[in-house]
């Protein structure tokens, strides 16, 4: 009986953490026009930050290794992206509160010309 309770408690704890992570992600994503979830040591995150800066956009950066509940947020992001592999989740980009995706999605969006309108729509770019 005690065991079952412990397992249940652990499951609840896990779910609570997951909910917490997702909530935080969603909250932070909606706070700015462009939000980049990053890790301070990640080189690809650096690349995506440079991309936005090069376009004249200043994104809000969330460094998961410096945030409380950073792990929960990383797990939530992984679930959002549907990636299960050991490769890093970050960088993950939200524009106008909506998920754009990881680096490859952002690149593809920029090449096919859909990124700029999205940024303009979110008010991150004026031109």
């Amino acid at each position: 009986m005690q065991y079952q309770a412990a397992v249940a408690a652990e499951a609840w704890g896990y779910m609570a953490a997951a909910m917490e992570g997702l909530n935080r992600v969603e909250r932070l994503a909606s706070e700015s026009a462009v939000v980049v979830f990053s890790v301070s040591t990640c080189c690809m995150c650096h690349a995506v930050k440079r991309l936005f800066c090069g376009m004249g956009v200043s994104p809000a950066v969330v460094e998961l290794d410096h945030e409380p509940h950073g792990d929960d947020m990383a797990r939530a992001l992984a679930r959002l992206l549907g990636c299960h592999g050991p490769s890093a989740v970050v960088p993950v980009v939200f524009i106008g509160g909506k998920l754009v995706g990881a680096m490859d999605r952002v690149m593809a969006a920029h090449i096919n010309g859909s990124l700029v309108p999205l940024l303009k729509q979110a008010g991150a770019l004026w031109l």
Partner: protein
Amino acid sequence: MASNQGEGDHTGLPNNQLMATNFFDQEGAAYFGELEEALMHGVAGITSDQDKTSFCTSRPPTLDIFPSWPIRFQQVSKTEGSTDSGSVQNTISQMDSEESPGSRKASSELFGKQKEEMASDSPQTNQKLKTQEKRRLVGSTSDKDGKAVDPKTLKRLAQNREAAKKSRLRKKAYIQQLESSRIKLTQLEQDLQRARAQGMFLGGCGTDGNVSSVFDMEYSRWLDEGCKNTMELRQGLEVHLPDADLRAIVDKCLTHYDQLFQLKATAAKLDVFHIITGMWATPAERCFLWMGGFKPSELLRVIMPQLDPLTEGQLVGLYNLQQSSQQAEEALFQGLEQFQHSLANTVAGDSLIESANVGTYTGHMAVAVGKFANLEGFVRQADNLRQQSLHQMHRILTIRQAARCFLAIGEYHSRLRALSSLWASRPRENLMNESALPVTTELQIVQQPVDGHFSGF
């Protein structure tokens, strides 16, 4: 003496008869042990004609080759006269057959060697030496027989025998190991050749060499297909194929490029360095290498003037494509730069000058190796950029223009490959003065343009 001389090469033979009787003696073991020791220490000394005394003094007193031989030999020679060589030969073979089943096979080999060496000796020298030995022996022991019965000596001899035996066994084991490794190696080489010839090399082994050769083979197949596509495009444009048919060919070309990026992605997972250093490409292509492939904005710059006539909309679209390509390329490049900085700092560690302790060194190196995993991500993103650019070109252009676009791209790359061949087969007279091999000069060419990109790789 004459009778002894008559025995010629077989100076040792009479003694074998005696050895046969001695073999099962207490002393038989001691006998062979001493034999082996002597052989190990170089029986060559026996052949020296001149310095008998030096021969005797140079060897430690415990190593008497034939302690009892000189005595017995003399006795035999006196009593038996000229021994029948035939019977002696039989004795020898008997000896060998007695020894081989036992663990004393090695000693019989040595004995065989010793026989040869004895055979090459001049009988007279042997005689004299044995006489010397006999005298020395008689002097050192109190036994009339001349056998070494000194217990300490016996003990030392036994130890020496043991050591000799051990080292013999070790040597045998090592040689066996070498032999089996050699056989394995030749088998592996044969398998490798066969597999390469058949082109059925599955890259499942995971070693870098295998992966790169698999990719190189698949890439050359891809190139062949690409040439076919290019020809089809050219023909289709020349005969003015209807758009529907041309579209099929153009789609085939696009899919063909998608296949390349898929191939490269798989190869990069296993051996990123092969991809990012462009070892799969020809030297001229490597001049322009950007993150393991062509630079989209640069390719577009080259191709665009040849796509005329273009509508206004198309021009704007292509210009935007070039712009966004450049921005994306710049961003990736800066990310890669940061990777370089981070890696360099890790490798440098705390102290390059003072010798780092093993712990911190291995720690730093392990972290550095871990960081290499990031490279694959950059190659993947670069290929993604290339793929997206090609697709965007396809979207912007009409079918006919797209056909010309892909034809131009295919032709451009094939000219670069031709350039590499021309360079490789250029006349070398004016290069005779330079000691540089063609490879070096190629490297020089690669160095200059690639500098400022990612010349580290």
